[in-house]
């Protein structure tokens, strides 16, 4: 049987997500807006995001006209906290490459 502490913790995490994205589940205007971005873009994704599925970052990279998708190894949803150095490095490298 599940440990109640774990069950409650996971449920509270899901509850926070529901507060943000239960309805609407997606922004219908976002795909059209993304196709209008004219500058280069880096889409940073987690290796395994349990809150927002990886398909979301895949889709961003697909729709942005000039985008590159990079996933930070060893991360879930909180990649900025989980792998701060790798995340910062990815951003700096991207900025350097676009100068």
């Amino acid at each position, binding site marked *: 049987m599940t440990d*109640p502490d774990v069950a*409650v913790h996971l449920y509270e995490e*899901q*509850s*926070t997500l*529901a*507060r943000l994205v*239960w*309805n609407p589940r997606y922004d219908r205007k976002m795909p059209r807006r993304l196709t209008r971005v004219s500058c280069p873009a880096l889409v940073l994704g987690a290796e395994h995001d349990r809150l927002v599925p990886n398909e979301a970052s895949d889709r961003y990279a697909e729709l942005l006209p000039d985008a590159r998708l990079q996933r930070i190894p060893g991360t879930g949803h909180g990649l900025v906290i989980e792998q701060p150095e790798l995340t910062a490095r990815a951003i700096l490298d991207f900025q350097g490459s676009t100068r």
Partner: protein
Amino acid sequence: MTQSLQFFHFGLMPYPSIPPPEQIESTWVTLSNSNYDPVVGHRLYNEYLDQAVLAEKLGYDGTCVNEHHQNAYGTMPDPNVMASHIVARTSKIRVGIIGNALPLHENPLRVAESVAMLDVISGGRIISGFVRGTGMEYHSMRANPATSRERFWEAHDLIIKAWTTDGPFDWQGKHFDIPYVNPWPRPFQQHPPIWLPGQGSFETIKEAAKRRYPFMMVFAPLSFTKVNYDMYRKAAADEGYEPAPEQLAFCVPTYVAETEAKAHEEAREHMMWLFHRGLKIPDYHWVPPGYMSGQSLRGMIMGKRKFGIKDHTDLSYQDLLDDQYIIVGTPQQVAEKLAYYTDELGAGIHVASSAQIGDMPNWKVVKNMTLFAEEVMPLFRPPGNQPAWERGVPVPGTPASLSPTPAPTL
């Protein structure tokens, strides 16, 4: 019997002709409506509504309807439509709408208006239950479960104010923003009494006790219901009063027949339909994220463990009897059980008394209701066996019904 009880007829209006439980994921949310035949539905609705009308003829204290969406367990997505039909075909019985699922509605004023219309048409016979809707309905209607509790209480406050304050007034809330709140008609009663049916969350029980609203547990074992009612009494004590028995209602399916053997023979399959098919619901439909607080979820998990509560679909018929989810027997046996429930729970209202259950055919419902009304109800009433509406007993939930201290002004 020394106990006194009020009896509220309450059929869920299920649609019984669905595949067996092992062939479906759920009786809610995803069960395709291709299983619904409107010709069968036409017959069922009219039988069910006739049963509600019969409840008045037999002297029940009230008859109830409720709101559920996209399922075969209860086909009343708009309870006010059903209440309207019953109000038109009866003249005295109290009609409980238990209740309108407030967070599922875009604008609570629509509920305020519909219920006020019914209250005026019926001359003040309406009891207005408010519910949040089940977890399943947050999938079906896509209302946000994480904001449902705050939407519920804001909608509640708005409706009560709309019913009791001269309009127009401006409502600027977190979820509702209405510059001119001024509903016509106003309700016939000061406002219809409010009932709060629930599944046993701390928050609902505390709020119900604080506001002195009758609270009702649905389809739970006696032991778990008792814990929740004790919690209500404790919350009431914290508010400085002792609740009247009429503030606590228990919803227990009941079947009565001439002999014990016959009662079981006639009731068994229909009770099993209710618990195995009607309540075939996966956890991920029951408890969408945010629908409960973490504290309530913990309470539910620990409560289930402590009391050994099984999932509905794992309950055998014997479990239903042993754990006291249902009452089945001769009039004498049923009366003794009801007396026991009343004592154990300190409750004063029996909801679902002998109404239609699961896939029970009309003839059994009429027989059950008639026998129950004639042989069981008189034992819990003063001599003369008059229903509450003949005796002038106040409707449970109105300030006049609550003793000993008066209710605060809302």
